[in-house]
């Protein structure tokens, strides 16, 4: 009986609560709002205060997280800023090179091949569809990078200057010395240097002398910076000097390159790499080397202390490539006597000398260079005429009395 009474009472209480709730719900908004406000100001005020403080805490936490994220972003941006500046600088140089080249080139991204034995090849992001051909020269704003070996429609593979097959016919920037530049096959870190071989004994190259491509061979046009002379190398070769070169283009600068079309390479790149240009790395190297050379003017080797007139004469004679090569190889006494005699004796051998000066491509494809030089085969190999600008310069110099 008691439980039935209490059960009825519970039901009544529930009914009352439900009824009150329904009445409250049915009240107009104008009545509800003051009632709710009164509750918020009295009974619920401490709870509201708690909720408000919790909200503030959450916002402070979020603001702290946001601030930390912003600070991290700023730090990250500060860390990447120098890299971006370098990239900007590089792209600016590339734009400058493109402006100077004006036509006949393809910009490409270079990706180093990391597989064993292929460390010195790069995959270029341009192929035959973009006009790239085998043996196309690959250049950078600083100078020569390498040469295209394999061409696919969309990509191509190039060897870069540390590659063992890389050769380029070279000369000093002022044209006083000629030679063949190839990689220096020493141990690290000298592996990333170049050698200029076959420089006649009478020619002395000061440290910092800029070496550029000579244009002989028809692959690399004349005037692309290759590197600067670091020092002379002691080798077993008796009749020629070998110089160690610091490359104009470092491996880190090979990320973005230009591939020259064969027509562009054939028409020459005179004025593209301007040594007077302050943003030229080669020019910087030359300037630094020049100042060093001036500072060390008194400590040069004895043969550099010869009379000025004699040096001038010798230089004139030296710029004639046929004379230099042939006399260096087989007529050393005549070379020392007179320049005219050297020229006369050398003229019949001109073609052979030219082939000896061929750069990588021709040596790789013809394989006649080493054989001809070593065995001194009498029959000259007929070769196409050298580039007009190059031959003109050489002839002019040779005819100078």
């Amino acid at each position, binding site marked *: 009986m008691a439980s039935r009474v209490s059960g009825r009472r519970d039901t*009544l209480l529930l009914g009352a609560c439900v009824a009150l709730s329904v009445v409250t719900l049915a*009240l107009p908004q104008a009545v509800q709002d003051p009632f709710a406000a009164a509750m918020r100001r009295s009974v619920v005020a401490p709870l509201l205060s708690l*909720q408000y403080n919790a909200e503030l805490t959450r916002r402070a936490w979020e603001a702290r997280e946001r601030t930390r994220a912003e600070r991290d972003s700023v730090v990250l941006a500060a860390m990447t800023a120098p890299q971006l500046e370098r990239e900007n600088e590089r792209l600016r140089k590339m734009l400058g090179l493109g402006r100077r080249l004006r036509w006949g080139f393809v910009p490409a991204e270079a990706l180093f091949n990391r597989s064993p034995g292929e460390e010195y090849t790069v995959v270029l992001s341009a192929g035959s569809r973009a006009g790239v051909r085998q043996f196309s020269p690959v250049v950078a704003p600083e100078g020569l990078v390498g040469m295209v070996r394999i061409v696919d429609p969309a990509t191509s593979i190039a060897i870069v200057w540390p590659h063992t097959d890389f050769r380029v016919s070279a000369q000093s920037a002022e044209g006083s010395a000629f030679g063949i530049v190839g990689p220096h096959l020493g141990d690290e870190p000298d592996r990333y240097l170049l050698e200029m071989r076959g420089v006649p004994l009478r020619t002395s190259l000061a440290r910092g002398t800029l070496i550029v491509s000579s244009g002989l061979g028809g692959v690399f046009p004349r005037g692309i910076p290759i590197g600067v002379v670091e020092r002379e190398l002691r080798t077993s070769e008796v009749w020629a000097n070998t110089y160690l070169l610091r490359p104009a283009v470092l491996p880190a600068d090979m990320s973005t390159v230009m591939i020259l079309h064969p027509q562009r390479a054939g028409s020459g790149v005179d004025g593209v790499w301007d040594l007077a240009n302050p943003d030229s790395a080669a020019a910087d190297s030359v300037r630094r080397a020049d100042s060093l050379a001036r500072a060390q003017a008194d400590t040069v080797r004895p043969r550099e202390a010869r009379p000025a007139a004699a040096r001038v004469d010798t230089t004139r004679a030296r710029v004639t490539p046929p004379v230099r090569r042939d006399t260096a190889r087989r007529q050393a006494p005549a070379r020392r006597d007179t320049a005219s005699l050297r020229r006369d004796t050398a003229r019949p051998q001109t073609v052979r000398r030219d082939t000896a000066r061929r750069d990588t491509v021709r040596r790789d494809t013809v394989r006649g260079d080493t054989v001809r030089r070593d065995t001194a085969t009498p029959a000259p190999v007929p070769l196409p005429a050298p580039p007009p600008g190059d031959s003109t310069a050489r002839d002019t110099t040779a005819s100078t009395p």
Partner: protein
Amino acid sequence: MKGIDLLRILIAFGLLLVLHYTLRPLLAWRSSPDFLVIALLLVSIRVRPGTAAIVGFVTGLVADSISIDGLGAGALAMSVVAFGASWLKAVFFADNLPLIAFFIFLGKWALDIMYHLASGNLGGGELAMQLLVWSPLAAAVTALFGLIVLALLRPILRTSPA
């Protein structure tokens, strides 16, 4: 119920009330745990259904005063849920944590259904989404937190021997 047990229940209820207005805004989840429901059910299963209905009504009114619209909807829903919880507890359940968690889940879901239907603040697809997706999720989260709270408050909520 003895005085000491009543005091313990009141302490637990107060703690949960504070948690509702502190931890919940801090978490700010889309499906937040409803500590008011946990507190209400905790009390409801220890008092008579009529008393539970009154506690539910008052608690609902407090909650409604903070919300923007539907003053009375929470009071109605909590009254019914509290009464039902107390009645069902008397009929079915013992002190079993999984059962209580399920109980809390059902209680929270039922409360949400009644609240949203009574207040009329949502309609159409939004109401269906709320009642079929978000409310069950909130109920599950509430049940989980209810289990944790009950486990933590077990020393307080243990009834003293007669």
